[in-house]
């Protein structure tokens, strides 16, 4: 049973319930519409929280494995409760706002960053028909995601500027330059997939890859360049090594979140891991067939699609973590050079190749 059918059943049941109480059908439909949205939004936030809890633990274990140490071991069996303890620590910490900081902006920054990160989750197709904002996705899903993604930057900029610290400001400036630049190759790679699937809907892109693993986008030779471009610019968009210059610890102390402690810092942290999961999810949707099973459609194993989606995303997350703990950091000019001199031209090449493939009728 897919998420969609469960949702329909619950909706019908609720309408019946409300009708039994004498509520007009029109009004109950409206109420349920609002309720669906509220539940969807809550689910997105919960997804981010869970992602952060799991990924912080995972990152520490993965880095421990790569660096030949153990990682957390004290809290619970093999340290599995470490993230929860971290959350409690962050909650209990004193919230410090620097004396000369812009109090309002300093507070808004992390909230904005997290809110925007959560907003992008509404167009992720978790399962067949399992998109929170199905109507938005059906029209302009890819564009919505790109639009929301471009707003995350404002949280960083506002937080960095509002801290009234020169390191934070430098981090914010770097963040702005980096994220604006890497958005372009990312969108170009996205466009290739859009051309392939002939739809702007993320759910539609998954539908287009229906079939076994052979039908997935990453196995089409003209998709190899977009795969690489999307992965690199995705890592750059979420500010992870080797592109972590906005928070480059050894250069900018902590970059834009230098002046944050306690829960505000935790919000940045949450959003960062939320974004990590988001990029992995979108990558899986675009190139790895989203919720589709590798063994064909319908899934011979009869597993829920969300499991396949999360498994694929986890694979991407692990690759990104592996990269983070292996490579040094690029310098700011090299980073911008990579985006403007290499990735954007490569993006146009990929787009051209895609167009040629379509015109030749191979797609």
């Amino acid at each position, binding site marked *: 049973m897919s998420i969609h059918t469960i949702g329909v059943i619950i909706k019908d049941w609720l309408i019946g319930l409300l009708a039994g109480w004498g509520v007009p059908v029109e009004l109950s439909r409206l109420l349920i519409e609002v309720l669906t949205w509220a539940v969807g939004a809550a689910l997105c936030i919960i997804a981010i929280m869970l992602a952060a809890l799991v990924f912080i633990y995972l990152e520490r274990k993965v880095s421990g494995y790569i660096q030949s140490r153990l990682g957390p071991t004290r809290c619970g069996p093999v340290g599995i409760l470490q993230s929860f303890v971290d959350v409690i620590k962050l909650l209990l910490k004193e919230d410090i706002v620097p004396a000369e900081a812009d109090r309002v902006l300093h507070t808004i920054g992390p909230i904005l960053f997290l809110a925007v990160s959560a907003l992008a989750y509404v167009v992720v197709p978790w399962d067949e028909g399992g998109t929170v904002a199905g109507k938005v996705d059906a029209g302009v899903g890819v564009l*919505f995601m790109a639009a929301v993604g471009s707003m995350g*930057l404002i949280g960083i*900029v506002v937080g960095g500027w509002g801290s009234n610290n020169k390191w934070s400001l430098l981090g914010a400036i770097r963040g702005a330059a980096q994220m604006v630049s890497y958005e372009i190759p990312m969108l170009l790679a996205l466009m290739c997939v859009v051309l392939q699937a002939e739809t702007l809907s993320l759910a539609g892109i998954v539908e287009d890859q229906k079939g076994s693993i052979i039908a997935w986008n990453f196995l089409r030779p003209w998709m190899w360049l977009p795969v690489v471009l999307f992965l690199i610019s995705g890592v750059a968009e979420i500010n992870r090594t080797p592109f972590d210059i906005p928070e480059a610890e050894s250069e900018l102390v902590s970059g834009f979140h230098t002046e944050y402690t306690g829960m505000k810092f935790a919000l940045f942290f949450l959003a960062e891991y939320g974004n990590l999961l988001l990029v992995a999810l979108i990558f899986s949707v675009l190139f790895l067939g989203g919720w589709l099973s590798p063994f064909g459609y319908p899934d011979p194993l009869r597993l829920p699609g969300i499991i396949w989606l999360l498994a694929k995303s986890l694979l991407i997350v692990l690759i990104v973590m592996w990269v983070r703990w292996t490579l040094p950091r690029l310098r700011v000019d090299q980073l911008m050079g990579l985006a403007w001199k290499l990735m954007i031209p490569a993006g146009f090449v990929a787009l051209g190749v895609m167009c040629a493939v379509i015109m030749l009728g191979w797609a």
Partner: protein
Amino acid sequence: MLNNFCFWFAALVALGASVLAVSRRNAVHGLLWLVLSLLAVAVLFFMLGAPFAAALEVIVYAGAIMVLFLFAVMMLHLGPAAQRQEAQWLAPGVWIAPGLLALGLAADLIAIARLAGDAPAGAGIIPPEAVGAALFGPYVIGVELASVLLLAGVVAAYHLGQRRDRSLGEGAGSG
């Protein structure tokens, strides 16, 4: 009903945010209100059945242009002195006359709208495909002209960037 409520709410936010964007003395605050106003306008577009325009509004205006504005303003280290200067510019003598004129225009607009009677806000949802077909169909010359304009902008930006590099290079050694 829900749609109407969303529309009016977004419209109010857009108006309020625009007023605040003009009246804030702190340039960064003003810019952030402007971003909010643009986002509200994007919601309006969406409600009117133009999701493509809404997405572009956010990507291009709120996400890129405003961020670059913020970027530039942040680099300027505006302090209390700049805020005092802003306060002088917002003296009543400066804004009352244009404000009255604008009010007159608004009244004009409302009158025209009332005379014209009820007009449908949007002709259904316009999908991105329709926008593309229109742009590269009847309006293709406009698109080409716009791209030429952008090219001029790119060349100008390149030129400015080059000059800046040279002035840096003198004291900069090998950099």
